[in-house]
């Protein structure tokens, strides 16, 4: 029998771990339930690009240009004119009270200036106290307005393209936030479950005193580590399938890249997560501690990885911190591959970063394990 590795022993550990996992109904249910609940919450409830925002229109004239612009704005879906033709002072009050998010003011000489060929102005006031809520709506304005009265003036679209106002929203022209969130959720859910479950599974052995017994039997640290990690990799695989299927069938997220490249990225990512969990378990003294430490790791990575807030929008130092989380790199891979069709060449940096994390974590974990023997 081999002294350092034997498949029989690994099989013994795997069979044991799987049986325990299946028997713990609540935990097992959580592993499957978490992706579903999170998908439902983030996918359906949270929308960073809200539509149908209440608006007010301040205008004195009801000519063709005004009507054209109002209907063009409504067609974008962002604006819903609840108040039309009200005086300026009332519009101010409405915005202050938060009853409207936008006030569109069309001056009385608007059509005259259009016909005269002057540059006419429209004032659009946005309630920017929630920038995320208004940014999408604001960004569509220029094009919409321009196109609206170009149509009225009888110019065709080709000429319009020579005008310098260009709003170009790539990869997600309709601004559907699920496209961004659902692939991101893949990373977040995997991280939540993998890190915590692995950390707790090993700490449980220590807490219940079974670790001592396990170590007294001829199992090597490497086998014990693999025996703990592999079952959770399998759980991760099941979660990946659930999320990807939901992304396709429920949220209709486009998948333009290579599935194999994504799977490769996922595998490396899960390995690094499980190893983080494993590392936590070698430090934590109890399951409670393991859980707390998992959350301590989980929250900043959620905030700084670019899942919650745009990565490029963070200050430089925050981006630097963000770089130390595998999630950050994984998000780049999953969004790059799914939405932009990125190839391996384009994804080389985040891939290498993930591989680097994994190797580092393996070294750490093995080193920590030897210490826990004594």
């Amino acid at each position, binding site marked *: 029998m081999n002294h350092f590795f034997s498949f029989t022993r690994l099989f013994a550990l795997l069979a044991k771990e799987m049986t325990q996992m299946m028997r713990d109904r609540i935990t097992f249910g959580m592993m499957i339930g978490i992706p579903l609940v999170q998908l439902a919450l983030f996918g359906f409830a949270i929308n960073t690009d809200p539509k149908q925002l209440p608006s007010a229109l301040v205008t004195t004239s009801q000519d063709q240009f005004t009507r054209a612009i109002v209907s063009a704005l409504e067609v974008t879906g962002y604006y819903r004119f609840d108040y039309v033709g009200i005086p300026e002072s009332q519009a101010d009050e409405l915005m202050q009270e938060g009853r409207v998010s936008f006030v569109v003011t069309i001056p009385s000489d608007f059509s005259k200036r259009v016909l005269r060929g002057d540059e006419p102005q429209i004032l659009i006031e946005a309630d920017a106290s929630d920038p995320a809520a208004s940014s999408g709506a604001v960004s569509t304005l220029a094009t919409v307005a321009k196109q609206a009265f170009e149509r009225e003036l009888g110019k065709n679209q080709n000429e319009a393209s020579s005008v310098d106002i260009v709003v170009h929203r790539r990869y997600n022209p309709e601004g559907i936030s699920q496209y961004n969130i659902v692939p991101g959720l893949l990373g977040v859910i995997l991280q939540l479950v993998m890190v915590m479950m692995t950390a707790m599974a090993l700490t449980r052995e220590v807490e219940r005193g079974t670790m001592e017994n396990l170590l*007294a039997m001829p199992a090597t640290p490497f086998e014990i580590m693999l025996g703990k990690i592999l079952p959770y990799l399998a759980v991760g695989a099941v979660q990946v399938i659930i999320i990807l299927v939901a992304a396709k069938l429920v949220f209709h997220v486009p998948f333009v890249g290579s599935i194999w490249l994504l799977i490769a990225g996922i595998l490396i990512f899960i390995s690094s997560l499980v190893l983080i969990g494993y590392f936590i378990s070698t430090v934590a003294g109890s399951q409670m501690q393991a859980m707390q430490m998992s959350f301590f790791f989980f929250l900043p990575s959620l905030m700084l990885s670019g899942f919650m807030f745009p990565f490029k929008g963070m200050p430089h130092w925050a981006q630097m911190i963000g770089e130390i989380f595998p999630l950050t790199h994984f998000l780049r891979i999953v969004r790059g591959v799914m939405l932009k069709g990125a190839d391996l060449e384009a994804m080389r940096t985040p891939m290498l970063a993930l591989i680097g994390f994994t190797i580092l974590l393996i070294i750490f974990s093995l080193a920590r394990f030897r210490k826990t023997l004594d």
Partner: protein
Amino acid sequence: MKAIDVRNLVKRFGDKTVVDHVTLSVEEGEISGFLGPNGSGKTTTIRVMCGLLTPDEGEGTVLGYDLHADQLKIKRQVGYMTQKFSFYTDLTIEENLFFVARLYGLSPTRSYVRDTLDKLGLTSRRHQLAGLLSGGWKQRLALAACIMHKPKLLLLDEPTAGVDPKARREFWDEIHDLAADGMTVMVSTHYMDEAERCHRINYIAYGKLLTSGTVEEVVAEAGLHTFILSGKGSQSAARMLANQQGVDQIAPFGNSLHVVGKNKTLLEQAVRKASQEFDIRCEPGQTTLEDVFIQYMTGSTDNMAEPASESK
């Protein structure tokens, strides 16, 4: 060949020396008792012997394997039963046995497990979760799992704590059977009656091995003398004797009093005086193992206690 032959073992945790130059040898096929107060380093010593811990100092062999270099080989031939039940409570009895059998590479696994279940008499309950077993059954299951791979050395860490007398008796019968078949057993215990069931005993206190030998040798070596006072006034006599010279221990046993001392002359003077004063019977008694151990315990200093005068 000796089953255990270690010299000057030292194990420290931080700045605490838990095992302090312990030299120990156990013959093959012998049942060796390991005694000592709580926190005396018994568990740590046992963990060193089964390859779980590496000693900081000292050398020696277990089953002929070097303590430092061959820990994995030692693990394969040693059975270690931990103090606390340390099999999986969320696995069934059978699953636990399968797990152990596979880890030791026992083949054919199924027949090993079946035989063990049969011998335990647990075949009908094999699908029951191990966590639902009573204390006595848990202990039997743990022992069965530990000897499934037929180890040459069995290390038992307080195996009978919290087990009823009948189960305890059966447990010891089994230990003697195993030893008769050639297995070496080292067992730590707090119970004196269990110590007397061992071929040899080792007494460890605060990391230091204080004495070892057969029960008779240990008792004789301690050089203690005992008188038994019995009668109605023994309670008052106890109070009087408490601060008499030559009296080291007074232990009431029902209506009689067990008085122990090292200096026979002084002790005898004291008990004679008490016997006359309170009109109670006085006769020489047999020093027990318990008396010896209490004597050792009061005599040794606690190295775990903080040295208050130095730290302040």
